[in-house]
């Protein structure tokens, strides 16, 4: 028997090495991040007052987006860039029995809504939050307001009007001036 490997043996060994390398690569690949909480907050630079505050969003502002934007035929649809979860519309997959029309909006869903709203235009939002002071006109440059107000093309047509409670709630939240919770409550009611 000769000590030299035949061509087919070399091929076989090569294939084994390649297979082992591929298996190792697959095994070592990081697992996908399945976290529901994006743990996302936007922060203005030091010395600049906060705007788009996540706590205020969860407490007061989310309900306005749910009521005005989140029906299943609009931003409660999986294909939308701005995706809004709500108790009467799209639900984050869950094992808690939360379905469209069944069960209040969960904290995971509200966190996802916050990420969706502040992440719609990340660079513009950062630029906006770095301003001091911020004005309503600055806020109107953001698509999150420009589109529903009809300042930019919006497939769903006008969904807000300047001066109405829902719009006032969102503007004051964005620019970081003291928020009138009554306006948000009114804005979250059926139009």
């Amino acid at each position, binding site marked *: 028997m000769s000590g030299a490997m035949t061509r087919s043996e070399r091929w076989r060994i090569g294939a084994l090495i390649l297979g082992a390398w591929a298996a190792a690569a697959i095994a070592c690949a990081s697992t996908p991040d399945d976290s529901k909480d994006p743990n996302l907050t936007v922060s203005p630079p030091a010395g600049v007052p906060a705007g788009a505050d996540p706590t205020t969003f969860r407490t007061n502002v989310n309900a306005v987006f749910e009521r005005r934007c989140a029906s*299943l035929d609009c931003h409660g649809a999986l294909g939308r860039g701005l995706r809004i979860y709500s108790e009467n519309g799209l639900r984050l997959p869950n094992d808690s029995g939360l379905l469209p029309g069944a069960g209040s909006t969960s904290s995971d869903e509200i966190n996802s809504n916050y990420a969706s709203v502040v992440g719609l235009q990340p660079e513009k939002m950062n630029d906006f939050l770095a301003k001091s002071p911020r004005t309503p006109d600055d806020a109107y440059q953001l698509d999150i307001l420009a589109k529903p107000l009809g300042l930019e093309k919006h497939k769903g*047509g006008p969904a807000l009007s300047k001066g109405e409670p829902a719009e006032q709630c969102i503007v004051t939240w964005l620019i970081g001036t003291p928020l009138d919770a009554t306006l948000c409550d009114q804005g979250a009611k*059926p139009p």
Partner: protein
Amino acid sequence: MSSRRLVSGAALVLAAAALVAVQGCSADPVQSDAISALGKEKGSANEFHRAGQPCGLCHQKGGSAPSDFSVAGTIFAGPNSLVGVDGARIDLVDANKTSPPLATPIITNCVGNFFVRRSDWDPAFPLSVRVTKGGTSRTMSSQISRTSSCADCHKAQVPLVDPFSSLGPIYLFGPDGDPAGKAKECDRDPDVTLDGTPLDRSLFVPGGGAKPWSPTWRKP
């Protein structure tokens, strides 16, 4: 070849190319795929066809159907029994507080289908909607924001394929269907299909096929 023949030949080629270009550009592949997924027309396309399907896919301006609907859908008896409710009244109010003209009330036919022609009422969204028959009335808890097809959100599926992003059929009565015990007999085939596959026919038998609702979709 004479120059006249050459010119007329070139004109023909140009016309053919223009026709192909127009045909190609006017077709919306997303829309045509969605229509294809609904399956072929089985009988004649009339007001009784395709109950539970998204009417607006074809019934829109420039769509493949001749009529343009501003709102259209199907009302079923119960969530698990896809029996159409005959004679239910649909009340609609738009953002400008207008409604379809009183002279043409929106009433479901015997497969549960209803429609509003855009020529009768071209609403400003969002819309509020209520369904009423006899002493039973249901008001939609959210609003219709932009779609003309109820079935865009309300799927005639038992069980729902994706219960997190869609709702079941619009139903007027409870899980057991019509409290009168029997839906009005309808000699029309509602031809309800899902993705081209006919649904379990027992679902259409009044009082029959009341399957327990169990979501099959799970987070991957």
